[in-house]
């Protein structure tokens, strides 16, 4: 055998359940000695670096039930956990008030990664810098979780507990995301700050979604920040600042400053905490300006 790498995984068994039910049984059986493989773009790297040493890897690629992207009866959209990022990127049903979801996905890495990575995998990996997550949270997405004993759902923003840790209990699997229909005059933007664009992990990511009322005041706003805390963070004070107000440039600037204060960045090899904080301010302003511009032009 030839090897071009001194990186070497520890041995594991590979299981390929065909249905969600079969998968749930396996997860309950193996518990924490199993890792779940969606697209592999995060997990396989972790396996190679021996950061993960599961006894069993459960590959989801055979479970067709987990691949869906369709409009719901109420005008929202449901997206299965195993939907490829490249398919989310091209989904015309995610338009207008939901187009920020596509913006997040488009700024993940590169085409080769988007051809394998999945929307569910990006959330379950629970990296604070994940680009697909803030737009989904801003859009009000909930997650549908299934286990042997049934289903539950949860707002996506409550799904992340710590870096690498989600609210999934032993035996549970992420089935998919339910995105509610956006209100009229809603628009959202995702801005990623990274030196080499999508290729890099975000230094800071800002999703801003605004809904305007008939008098162009902010009816509601959601600002979700990536890479400036242990999980994606809502900038709630900044949101409150904007709500009910006419969004002037001065208000936008203040919202940016407020969001920066709410961020809890650390310093690491990608950026210092101070720089991250500055970027939250810059990109919150920019995201708000663009979202407001789009919302004003959106059909009532």
């Amino acid at each position, binding site marked *: 055998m030839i090897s071009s790498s*001194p990186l070497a995984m520890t041995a594991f068994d590979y299981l390929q359940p065909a249905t969600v039910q079969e998968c749930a049984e396996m997860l309950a059986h193996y518990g924490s000695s199993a890792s779940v493989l969606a697209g592999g773009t995060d997990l396989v790297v972790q396996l190679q670096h021996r950061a993960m040493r599961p006894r069993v890897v459960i590959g989801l690629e055979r479970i067709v039930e987990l691949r869906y992207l369709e409009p719901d009866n109420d005008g929202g959209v449901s997206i299965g956990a195993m939907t490829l990022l490249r398919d989310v990127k091209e989904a015309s049903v995610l338009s207008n008030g939901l187009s920020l979801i596509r913006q997040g996905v488009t700024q993940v890495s590169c085409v080769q990664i988007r051809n394998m990575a999945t929307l569910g995998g990006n959330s379950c990996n629970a990296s604070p810098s994940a680009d697909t997550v803030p737009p989904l949270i801003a859009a009000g997405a909930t997650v549908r979780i299934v286990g042997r004993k049934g289903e539950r759902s949860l707002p996506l923003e409550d799904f992340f507990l710590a870096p690498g840790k989600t609210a999934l209990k032993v035996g549970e699997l992420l089935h998919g995301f339910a995105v509610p229909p956006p209100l009229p005059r809603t628009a959202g933007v995702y801005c990623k700050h990274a030196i080499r664009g999508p290729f890099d992990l975000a230094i800071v990511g800002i999703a801003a979604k605004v809904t305007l009322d008939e008098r162009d005041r902010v009816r509601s706003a959601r600002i979700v920040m990536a890479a400036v805390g242990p999980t994606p963070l809502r900038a709630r004070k900044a949101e409150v600042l904007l709500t009910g107000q006419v969004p002037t440039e001065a208000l936008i600037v203040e919202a940016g400053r407020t969001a920066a204060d709410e961020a809890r960045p650390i310093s690491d090899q990608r950026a210092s905490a101070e720089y991250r904080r500055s970027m939250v301010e810059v990109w919150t302003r920019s995201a708000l300006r663009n979202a407001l511009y789009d919302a004003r032009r959106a059909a009532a």
Partner: protein
Amino acid sequence: MKRGSADLSIIGTSVPRVDAVNKVLGRTKYVADLQLEFPELLHAAVLRSPHAHARVLTLDTSRAERLPGVTAVVTGKDCPKTIAWTTQRILAEEEVIWAGEGVAAVVADTPEIAADALELIQVRYEKLPAVFDAEEAAKKEPPTVVDRNLGRHPGGPQFAPEFPNVTGSYELHTGNLEQGFANADVIVENRYSTGRISQSQLEPAACIARCEPDGKLTIWTNGQGVHIIKGMLSDLFSLSHSKVHVISPYQGGSFGNRIRYHQAEALAALLALRTKVTVALTFSRREMYLGSPGGLPIITRVRTGAKRDGTIVAQDLDVLVNNGASYACQQDGRAAGSGAICVYRQPNVSMRTRGVNTNTPWAGAYRGLGSPQVTWAVESQMDILAARLGMSVVDIRLKNILNRGERNAYGEMVESIGAARCVEAVAKAIRIDEPSVHEAGPWRRGKGLAVGGKQNTPRGRSEATVLVHDDASIEVRFGSDEVGNGAETVMTQIAAEEFRVPGQTVRVVRGDSATTPYDTYSASSFTTYNTGNAVRLACREAIGIIRRAAAPLLQSGEHDLEVADGCVGIRGVPGSGLQISDLFKPFSLFKDERLPELRKGTPIIGHGIFAPSPPVAWDKKNGQTPKMWNWYQYNACAVEIAVNVETGEIKILKAAVAADMGFPINPKLCEGQMEGGLAMAIGTSVMEEFLYRDGVMINPSFGDYRIPTVSETPTRENVAILFAPDPLPDGPWGAKGIAEGSVLAVGPAIGNALYNATAVRVYDLPLSAERVLAALKASAPPVAA
């Protein structure tokens, strides 16, 4: 047939690379691809120190040795002592001096078992004080001594014993510095620095080492210089040269990284000799950052004095080169310092260069050998002076650039210098006199330019062998490298030109210490010059043999004959030619003929040896010499950038690069070097740097050590590549080299453009977004209350 440049048949033409067909088909074999050919192959892995400086208290390999599938575990005590001219070690023994230094290596049946074995090795370390800052390390009483073995080898290099971490120093004094500054109308003094960088070539270090039953060592490696490696391994393991065979297949880039002496080949050889089997050692990308030689951080303090008309009248420089834990090739910083001497007229200059060790991964040859880092300082100074004097950035440079026939501050005669025309070419291409158009929003645009020169080390000798087979096909054998530099193509062109045949008639055999003659490695941009000249000489010897064999048949003096298109004929007499293949008489089993001398099955062999004239030892008092280095290549760069004043990001919108390479043997290959150098230098100027915590590199991956993707380079129409060659008298057809020039001037061009856009100057590379933003904020006028 006349031999003027107008009559060149293939030299100066962009013939397709001879290795390109296999490369686009994916058939080219690199070292790791050869592993399949060795069914008995075992795999090596290296345990590396997590600490920048520590004593190794205990090292217990017994559990690893007992693991089924493990053949051997070696540690520092199993390694031979290093050879005299370097203090580098294969594996650490009592002390580790950088985070990433190897402390043990295992050989196992599979990479998985090797990785398991590493985890079973138990090491206890006692952390020791470490020094990371070059200026701290260079003091008389530094926080710690990095390499206790420095200076203890007989015949070792120059060093200053009272400064325990200084590896060497050099001083140059020309004219009267004090007088010069007294006459200056304006004086500018600053401190510049550059960060630690990595070549980051795509193919990681890889070796396959095999020990034969008779004790002979064969090693396939992507390290550079098969004969140099052979010599090093022979010395290290006390094997005669005939017992060591080094082969280098195609190499996936280098930019200096593969001139690495001990870390890969020596370890692979040690493991093979110990286990008596075939061992593959391949570095991970992380190991490339931690355990292979990267590029030197350099601090340059410079004080420059100029007259009102822009003439430089005095320059005082201190160049401090950070070698990491163990110097590889810049022990005294002299090569780096040459960047400050080879471009401008300097009647009064004082320069001190030093190399220093720190507890960081060892650094070595990186494209430009320190010249780019010093050019960063010198070219920033030039723009600052221009601004103070109200002069154009072009005029101040043209005023001071040396001319052919002058002597530079070393005392060397300037033989070839295209720097001025390079400056003019890029200034025109970027329209430096037209200010950038400003746009609304946070992006500010600006333009800047710079020029630089890079020395060439007159190193050793190159040999080449040229065979003419009985079908008149030509085979060129040489021992240097094909790292992507195009050496095989250039040697093909040279032989084709000498024999006046199409390139397809020429075949190249390269990189095998048993069959290709002595050469060093492809470094310092000197392969076209050194190996190329050797190939020419070998061709001429072979041509001489053909002429000698044909002369009696043509009833002509041999000097009246010439060779072309597979024929040899009388010059000026068309139709007089004989086919070269007809000169080879059939082999006869029964007759014993001494004449004619050429026989089928026995090729004509021509051999060429080229050695550049050696340097002349410099005067110990003033550092001067009529020959410090060989020739210089020059390069200018002009850019238009956009700076985001809210984020500090820099985007390179347009770039013009002009090169003086003496003569472009293959214009498209030259363009490729220039475009590649531009991208690489954009990376090191704007986004690449080693980041450390306690001396441990925290970004050893392509994800976090930011080398440019296509998106960080200008679009195609915004890159201008220009040639401004000034022929070198003893270069092949006037050719010098080109590989390193294009990284020289990019950094300062960007820095000068940053100033042009924002009136803010940053003195430290890289111009990362954080650093630029901090500088912009620091200089911003205070907001009114």
